[in-house]
């Protein structure tokens, strides 16, 4: 099972020569060759337009039919290279012999391209080069040339499917490479969490000056071979370490707590302010903040010392009859961060004081005060013309205000009446901060000598490296302390310098697995602790996990089972419920292109956040209630807040928090597929995109992504002003009249068209609003047929068919879970283990936690 075919030399790869019989080496001696393959072919791979790939596991109906995966055998089963090669000879080779070998074979190599010698098996390195080229030509309909006999669409489709499935397997294999020692970099999120747990401070990694966003593969941001590191990262890590250590350590006297205040009265400045003060009514001035006040109401917040700041904002929030509550939002322009936002609804004469905490960097920050709801005017403007009579009450209507209130002084638009904003900070839990006390464990009475320094560093580095240190490692850090002291540092500063090195060390920044001196196919207990902890918590193992590892007990199944259950109950497990669905479902694409304001005037940030929160809290609910993954396909409940419920037309939900809400069939929701987040991430901000939706379903739910589209697909035609309006479905159907396109799109499109009743932001509709052409808007037709002939009438029907195929989804889902947990692609070799995990889950009705537990307890999880 551990054996994988590989390539003899890099020269073979470059020359695209392959050993006649693929050599089977043991893993230890093949790691290097695999790695070379993965790297040196990367560029070529991009050149030849190979779609990056889903894992291999569920690719082929034929392989399923073989069902040979379940024959646990040490020898090659029917999914093994021998079986795959045999399949090539009978099913695929004849096509190429008939249509291709004439020009790209032994006698002729037109375009210097030869396909008859291309490797037959996806596990052969270099497989992707000739086959990627062949796939591109075939899907583009460029080969065979027009004047040659043409294969039927069916024949072409079969071959395209074979190549693309094999290419997927080939690529997954390359992202699954395991070196003798593997280095998997922490993601941005994991870095932030690890720093939080080490030092108790927040690192603002998501600000523009923070860390770059991590690259992803199939949505997964934690694939070891994909995460790269550049000098820019190193500079960022250095700067970050300096920042967080300065905040965590008390090397200077405690910073004075600073305060600041903004009052509505300030807006009545100058002579007017003096006049109002004389009359004794200056403190009665309020600031009316209408929607779309844009950049024009703001407050300057000067921060001398970075840290946690507490804000208090006093205001009233007036909801217009039948409308939305206003939404108070503070947005820092210089580091592009929303500091706080919340709906506010209180009577004009009963203002409320909101409190929140946020972490602020040093600097003079310009913070916008916004009423973040869509409003009457898309132009930014101040709430009230400057220099006019200040605002006191809604009853007091001046000419300008008439547009904003009705005759009774009730607001027409959601309106905030703001009185004051106050802030203070930095606030500390204690001084010195807890991390300082933990690091300088001896307190003030300790003798500040090198022995003490050594002990400090040994403790801290062990926590950061997630394992005990070896003495040369400690020596190096101690030497740095001595060097820093020579450069003029006092004891504490010199320790800080060494801690900086710890936080920039490869031992902290990478999850390192494997040991040259003691090679083992199994993880050590310390490695296991990290793998487990970063899987469920996205952070360092806690003391208990490390203790169990030190005792050598962690891998024992009783202990491990108990630990995984404990970890899932811990609040830190929220990281899994947020990150896994975000990566699996590609939620980072939600709102990538802001929906058109003219087409979707109601769309706002709040809705977007609520959409994403529905999906992640839905996932979390399934974890917490120990429900089955069946819920992901269809459910009679979902998680809604007032904003999203309004968007869905579901009544009876109030407030900002997402709450479990029972759905009726007429709500047209349930499961993940009809959640607004999913429906909008597959749209482009102006219209729904059925093909993208279908492709997404194949990737995320079916686990069987379609082959890449050929380059240069002509644009979809729009109707002229006199032609009748056409639904997108009709346009796509006209567009793909080409049989070559139809082959793949027959499988992709129905899975997307099924959701045509949902527009680009996931709103339910019966007909499609079409901009081009004349006449009535077309009615929508979401019906379709699966490749196996089963028909469905609409999205609800499709969901039923998917639930009937729960086993297939469970397989796909298990693979996603394993990809996330193991930080690598899954290969043919992992097939058997994945099936066993899914089968264990099935015995427990596919409960999500049961699947997680089965994965963690599996051999797959505990092996290198």
């Amino acid at each position, binding site marked *: 099972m551990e054996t994988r075919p590989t390539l003899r030399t890099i020269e073979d790869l470059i020359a695209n020569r392959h050993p006649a019989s693929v050599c089977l080496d043991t893993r230890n001696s093949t790691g*290097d060759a695999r*790695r070379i393959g993965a790297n040196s072919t990367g560029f070529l791979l*991009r*050149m030849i337009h190979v*779609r*990056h790939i889903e894992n291999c596991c569920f690719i082929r109906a034929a392989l399923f039919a073989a069902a040979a995966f379940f024959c646990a055998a040490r020898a090659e089963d029917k999914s093994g290279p021998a079986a795959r090669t045999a399949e090539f000879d009978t099913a695929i080779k004849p096509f190429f012999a008939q249509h291709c070998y004439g020009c790209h074979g032994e006698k002729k190599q037109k375009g210097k391209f030869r396909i008859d010698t291309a490797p037959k098996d996806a596990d052969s390195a270099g497989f992707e080069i000739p086959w990627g080229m062949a796939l591109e030509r075939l899907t583009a309909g460029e080969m065979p040339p027009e004047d040659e006999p043409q294969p039927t669409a069916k024949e072409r489709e079969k071959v395209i499917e074979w190549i693309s499935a094999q290419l997927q397997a080939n690529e997954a294999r390359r992202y699954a490479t395991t*070196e*003798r*020692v593997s*280095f*998997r*970099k922490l993601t941005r999120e994991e870095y932030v969490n690890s720093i939080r747990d080490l030092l108790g401070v927040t690192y603002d990694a998501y600000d*523009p*000056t923070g860390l*770059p*966003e991590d*690259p992803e593969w199939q*949505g997964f941001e934690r694939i*070891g071979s*994909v995460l*790269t590191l*550049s*000098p*820019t*990262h190193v*500079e960022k890590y250095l700067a970050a370490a300096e920042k967080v250590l300065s905040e965590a350590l008390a090397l200077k006297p405690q910073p004075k707590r600073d305060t600041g205040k903004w009052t509505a009265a300030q807006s009545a400045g100058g002579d007017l302010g003096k006049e109002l003060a004389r009359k004794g009514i200056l403190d009665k001035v309020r600031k009316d903040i209408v929607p779309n006040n844009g950049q024009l109401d703001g407050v300057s917040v000067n921060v001398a010392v970075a840290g946690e700041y507490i804000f208090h904002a006093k205001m009233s929030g007036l909801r217009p009859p039948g409308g939305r509550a206003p939404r108070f939002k503070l947005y820092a322009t*210089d580091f592009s961060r929303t500091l706080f936002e919340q709906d506010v609804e209180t009577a004009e004469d009963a203002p409320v004081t909101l409190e929140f905490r946020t972490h602020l960097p040093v600097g003079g920050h310009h913070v916008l005060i916004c009423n973040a709801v869509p409003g009457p005017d898309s*132009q*930014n403007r101040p709430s009230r013309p400057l220099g006019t009579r200040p605002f006191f009450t809604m009853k007091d209507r001046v000419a300008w205000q008439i547009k904003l209130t009705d005759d009774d002084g009730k607001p027409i638009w959601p309106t905030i009446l703001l009185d004051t904003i106050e802030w203070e900070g930095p606030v500390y839990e204690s001084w010195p901060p807890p991390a300082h006390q933990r690091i300088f464990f001896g307190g003030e009475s300790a003798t500040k000598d090198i022995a003490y320094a050594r002990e400090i560093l040994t403790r801290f580095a062990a926590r950061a490296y997630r394992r005990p240190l070896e003495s*040369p490692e400690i020596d*190096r850090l101690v030497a*740095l302390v001595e060097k*820093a002291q020579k*450069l*003029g540092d006092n004891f504490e500063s010199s320790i800080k*310098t060494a801690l900086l*090195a710890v936080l*920039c060390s*490869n*031992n902290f920044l990478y999850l390192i697995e494997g040991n040259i001196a003691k090679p083992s196919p199994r993880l050590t207990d310390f490695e296991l602790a990290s793998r487990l902890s970063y899987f469920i918590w996205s952070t360092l193992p806690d003391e208990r996990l490390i203790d169990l590892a030190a005792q050598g007990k962690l891998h024992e199944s009783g202990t491990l089972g108990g630990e995984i259950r404990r970890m899932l109950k811990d609040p830190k497990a929220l990281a899994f419920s947020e990150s896994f669905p975000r990566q699996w479902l590609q939620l*980072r694409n939600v709102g*990538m*292109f*802001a929906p*058109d*304001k*003219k087409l979707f005037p109601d769309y706002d940030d709040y809705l977007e956040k609520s959409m994403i929160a529905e999906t992640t809290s839905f996932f979390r609910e399934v974890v917490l209630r120990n429900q089955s993954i069946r819920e992901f396909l269809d459910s009679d409940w979902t998680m809604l807040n007032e904003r999203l419920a309004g968007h869905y037309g579901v009544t009876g939900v109030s407030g900002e928090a997402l709450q479990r809400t029972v759905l009726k069939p007429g709500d047209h929701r349930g499961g993940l597929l009809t959640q607004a987040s999913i429906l909008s991430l597959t749209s482009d901000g*102006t*219209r729904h995109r059925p093909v993208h939706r279908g*492709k997404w379903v194949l*990737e995320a739910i079916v686990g069987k*992504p379609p082959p890449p*589209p050929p*380059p*240069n697909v*002509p*644009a979809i035609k*729009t109707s002229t002003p006199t032609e009748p309006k056409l639904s997108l479905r009709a346009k796509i159907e006209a567009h793909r009249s080409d049989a070559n396109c139809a082959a793949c799109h027959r499988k992709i499109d129905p899975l997307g068209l099924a959701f045509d009743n949902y527009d680009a932001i996931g709103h339910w509709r019966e007909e499609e609003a079409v*901009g*081009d052409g004349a006449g009535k808007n077309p009615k929508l037709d979401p019906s379709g047929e699966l490749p196996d002939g089963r028909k469905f009438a609409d999205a609800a029907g499709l969901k039923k068919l998917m639930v009937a195929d729960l086993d297939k989804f469970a397989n796909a889902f298990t693979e996603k879970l394993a990809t996330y947990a193991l930080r690598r692609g899954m290969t043919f070799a992992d097939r058997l283990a994945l099936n066993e995990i899914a089968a264990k889950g099935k015995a427990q009705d596919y409960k999500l936690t049961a699947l997680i537990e089965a994965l963690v307890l599996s051999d797959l999880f505990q092996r290198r």
Partner: protein
Amino acid sequence: MSNVLTSRWLLSRRHFLRGLGTTLALPLLNAMAPISSAAEAAKPRRSVFVYIPNGVNGMAWQIKKPGRGYEFSPSLKPLEKLRDELTVFSGLHHPNALGQNHVCADTWLTGARIEAASGVYRNNVSCDQLMAETTSQDTRFSSLELSISGGTGSPKNSCTLAFSRDGVPLPAEENPRNIFERLFGEVKGGVAAQRTALNKTRSVLDTILDEARSLRLSLGTEDRTKLDEYMHSVRDVEQRSARLDSWLDVPKPKVDGAPFQRSVSKTQAGDYFRTMYDLIVLALRTDMTRVVTYMSGTEGNGLAIPEIGVTQTRHQLSHHNGDPEVLARLAKSDAFIMQQFAYFVDKLKTEMDGGEPLLDRTMVLFGSGMSYGHSHSNSNLPIVLAGGKALGLKHGAHIDYNKPHVTGEYKLDYEEWRNLCGKPKDERARLSNLMLTMLQKMDVKTEKFVDSVGAVSEVV
């Protein structure tokens, strides 16, 4: 503004850097003294890259006649007075960007193939960074990255044009005040404190490099991709901090910062664009850097221009769905952007640098990675190349690679535009050819950039 001559800031630290690999000695200050002899000093070569998102309205952009003496199209009209300073291109494309949706912005200067919808994101080095490797030895900043949105954005929706050797995006700066501060601000805490800090940083880097090195030794000669990547990066940062150190004793030029100290709102698009262009001119004039990228809009954030009544973002305008009204607004936005660009080129032309216009030794590549935004088509890109005459560029013509594949006159109708953008007419008309041309003019020794098939003979 004070007049700062380029040569005053021209320093050569090649010699110094050569010695860096082995030791981190104090900088050889005398080796970095300004070089007085003009014959000795290679005159500066500069490049600027300006990106606009989502393509343009090709019906109002396309120039009809190829060659010299052409008539400017409505959208390009603002450039008319600069006719002899620039070349307009039709029919260029990045082969790897075809069908890649909005990823075309990430790859505008890299030419890399990145799958749009799934798969691994891995970019190449951008051509500006290749140039910076050559020019950085002589300037305080190896390159300057500017953008409408700060940071790097996210993969496939980049807000920076520059990518390092490892294909990692280099964060851009959006705020004129911060950019000015970074370029011309005083060294924080004084030179001595900075030097101590740099020394300490280098000790830290030494330590972590040592740690990695010992691990690497145990690994033997194979199995060390990720660790090597780490070590190369650390070593690179070590060299950068040495370079920073060497500049500490060179005073920064004194310039008037007032125009950049105020708060510039992006809702005043014209003011914002011109302020950014002014900054670029200032940075070039004072030789703080010779390579600048400016993403004047990202694919997701192309400014609306309320001042001329265009309230939709460029992405929204580009999904016009054939609607004539939206198309008209897109053309209006295009023309406005060209006005600002003309302001920039004109300013480079008026600024004198050692007796010749700054523009003459500065090449400016302007354009988009998309052509027909509604369907995300990436052929027939809107591209303009300006400046660099003293580097040997010849201007004044409209170079049209669509001809002779498109016969007869352009009709400039919707169908024609859509078709021109869908598939390249000339598959050898690659944007990378133009980038190769610029690379060579920048003294980068190369015969190829990504998929280039040769320099653009029409302009050299």
